[in-house]
């Protein structure tokens, strides 16, 4: 009689042996060491070690600035929780090496996670340990520094340590909620549920909640520190249950069927009257055919719009002060340049291009063209929605459009200049992250202040801001033009 097999292919005896051979704490310790080495090797030890400090400084500075300018403490607390959920949603993908998300971010990796294919380790057990490790690791490295922002909200009370710990637990819990949500969605997908059905489900749930006015209670649940201990406990138990169920549902043998495509390269390339047409076409087709397709940049920009719009709405309802929507959204939505560029560099590497007769400057120029082709519509739609929804004046909308174009180009140039072909290296690299943050803040903060102070914008302010947008856009062009030679020298003399 043959031995019964578990659903992930390991026999019962194998599972017992693996449990006896490598305890979960030992497995966790190995995974933690791997995670640390991965980051320190990618970014350098001290640059990674400084990253939590940079996060803490940014969070505390932003929280103090918001409180001092009249933002309600509840809004700051809510905003930090939204950030924690968002980061959790993103981090939830990391456990699934082999999904194109992780491969695209770090390239092909030989993580311990892939050992389940060669060692007697259950894939589910390994994945569960991996997710637990990720949850704890990022709760310490990323979420804890964020929780120091609570100091600005509460002030230095008699028990600041307890306040910080409670705030950290609250943020860590919603970070875990985000991770569990992503894990659940991926698990469902491995059971053959198409991505569009999942997307539709999320859209309907969100729209339904908004239409029926039930987003308020959800918000209170997702800010545990403002609710009862019982509600927080319930959320924690629910998160654990969802994660455990997801691991049970997850099918480790799921393999995406091979996909075919009709020959579009020549048609697209011929339609682009450019010297770099083949390089641009490759970027566009890679993006269009990857998971989520060309909609990804639009979704990223729309999420940014939704977050900022919610914040503006809350500030308006509490303080009665609303910004000039064109100027405000034009400045902020330009930040989507970073995510758009990120999507455009997920499917290639500079090293791969160096086998063809093209220079690194050619590659960067092609990326800039692809960025404009993809980024312009992706950011124009949310911007138009914002100015219509918030009833911007014509002058305000026009100035905002100039700011949007100029700032997007500037943020793009800044990203390319600092991070080259690897914008994800901003993650956990303290020096680059700080440089980028300062570079963004220099034009953006005064613009946002102006947008709040002079509503609607005067003619003088409108002209000044429009000129500022043009100048900043030119700076962005210069930065992106210089990125080619800069990174060419770095790569060739490595």
């Amino acid at each position: 009689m043959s031995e019964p097999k578990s659903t992930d292919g390991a026999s019962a005896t194998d599972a017992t042996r693996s449990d006896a051979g490598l305890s979960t704490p030992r497995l966790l310790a190995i995974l933690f060491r791997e995670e640390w080495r991965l980051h320190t090797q990618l970014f350098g030890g001290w640059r990674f070690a400084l990253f939590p400090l940079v996060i803490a400084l940014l969070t505390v500075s932003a929280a103090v600035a918001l409180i001092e300018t009249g933002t309600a403490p509840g809004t700051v607390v809510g905003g930090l929780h939204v950030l924690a959920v968002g980061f959790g949603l993103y981090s939830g993908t990391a456990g699934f090496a082999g999904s194109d998300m992780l491969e695209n971010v770090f390239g092909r990796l030989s993580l311990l996670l892939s050992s389940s294919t060669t060692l007697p380790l259950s894939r589910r057990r390994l994945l569960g340990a991996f997710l637990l490790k990720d949850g704890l690791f990022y709760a310490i490295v990323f979420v804890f520094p964020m929780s120091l922002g609570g100091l600005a909200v509460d002030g230095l009370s008699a028990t600041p340590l307890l306040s910080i710990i409670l705030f950290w637990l609250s943020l860590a819990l919603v970070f875990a909620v985000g991770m569990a949500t992503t894990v659940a969605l991926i698990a469902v997908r491995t059971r053959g549920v198409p991505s569009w059905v999942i997307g539709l489900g999320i859209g309907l749930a969100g729209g339904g909640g908004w239409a029926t006015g039930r987003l308020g209670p959800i918000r209170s649940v997702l800010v545990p520190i403002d609710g009862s201990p019982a509600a927080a406990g319930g959320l924690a138990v629910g998160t654990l249950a969802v994660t455990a169920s997801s691991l049970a549902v997850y099918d480790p043998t799921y393999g995406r069927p091979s996909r075919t495509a009709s020959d579009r390269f020549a048609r697209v390339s011929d339609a682009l009257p450019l010297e770099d047409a083949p390089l641009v076409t490759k970027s566009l087709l890679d993006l269009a055919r990857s998971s989520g397709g060309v909609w990804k940049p639009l979704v990223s920009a729309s999420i940014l719009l939704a977050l900022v719009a919610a914040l503006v709405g809350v500030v308006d309802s509490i303080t009665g002060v609303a910004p000039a929507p064109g100027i405000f959204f034009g400045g902020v939505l330009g930040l989507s340049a970073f995510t758009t560029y990120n999507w455009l560099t997920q499917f290639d590497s500079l090293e791969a291009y160096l086998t063809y007769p093209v220079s690194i400057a050619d590659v960067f120029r092609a990326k800039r063209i692809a960025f404009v082709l993809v980024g312009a519509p992706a950011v124009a739609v949310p911007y138009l929605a914002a100015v219509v929804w918030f009833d911007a004046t014509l002058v305000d909308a026009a100035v905002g459009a100039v700011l949007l174009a100029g700032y997007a180009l500037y943020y793009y140039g800044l990203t390319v200049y600092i991070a080259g072909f690897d914008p994800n290296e901003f993650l956990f690299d303290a020096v680059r992250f700080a440089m980028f943050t300062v570079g963004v803040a220099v034009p953006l903060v005064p613009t946002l202040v102006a947008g709040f102070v002079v509503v609607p914008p005067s003619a003088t302010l409108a002209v000044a801001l429009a000129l500022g947008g043009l100048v900043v856009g030119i700076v962005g062009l210069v930065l992106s033009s210089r990125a080619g030679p800069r990174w060419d020298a770095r790569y060739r003399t490595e």
Partner: protein
Amino acid sequence: MGVIRVAGLRKTYGTVSAVDGMAFAVDRGEVYGFLGPNGAGKTTTIRVLTGQIEPDAGDVSVLGTDPVADPIETRRRVGILPEQESPPSFLTPREYLAFVGEVRGLDPDRVAERTDTWAERLGFESKLDTLHTDLSRGQQQKVMIAQAFVHDPDVVFIDEPLANLDPLVQEQVKRFLVSYAADDNAVFVSTHNIDVAEEICTRVGIVADGRLVAERSLADDATDESLLDLFLDRVEGEDARDTPALEQLHT
């Protein structure tokens, strides 16, 4: 007069010396095997010769071009099959080869014709419209071999040519490399597979610690010492032969 010439080549990464005084030359008609253990400096040498990185010192020349001063011209004239895996691309092999052809300024009809020829030769006709990211590693390697030859280069640099290929295709590729070099071209093959080097190369250079430690012509060499023995002597010294065999380790 060699089509590939290297003299006094040096390259360090930080404190690690990857190539340390490399010197050799390759002529037309040769399949030159660059044989060495992992980390010997083979890939670094190829990257310098194809203008991907700059050396710290030394003179290099490929087909009369200077890969350091004019890397684009060098890469225009040679074919390159890199060792590292290509990142996930969502182009199909047909589109990818069209992309390579366009980057190299080739006539699209000629590229289409050559795509069909290579697909038939290496057996990936049925995969021409499958996304590259969904191909097996072996199929991806076949496509990468095709792109290295799509423009009929006079010199081809190949890093581990037979990686991930099934035995049938390995034989086809080996025969093709020999015949390609015989057509007055040069094929530069970096490998650590001694059997492959012995089978297809006309001459072999053995590399260790960033230097060329031995060279042997395989076309008309009548020496009794096998290439494996020469390799072990020059790379590890006589002690290498005393390394216990796997059978001994097992017992």
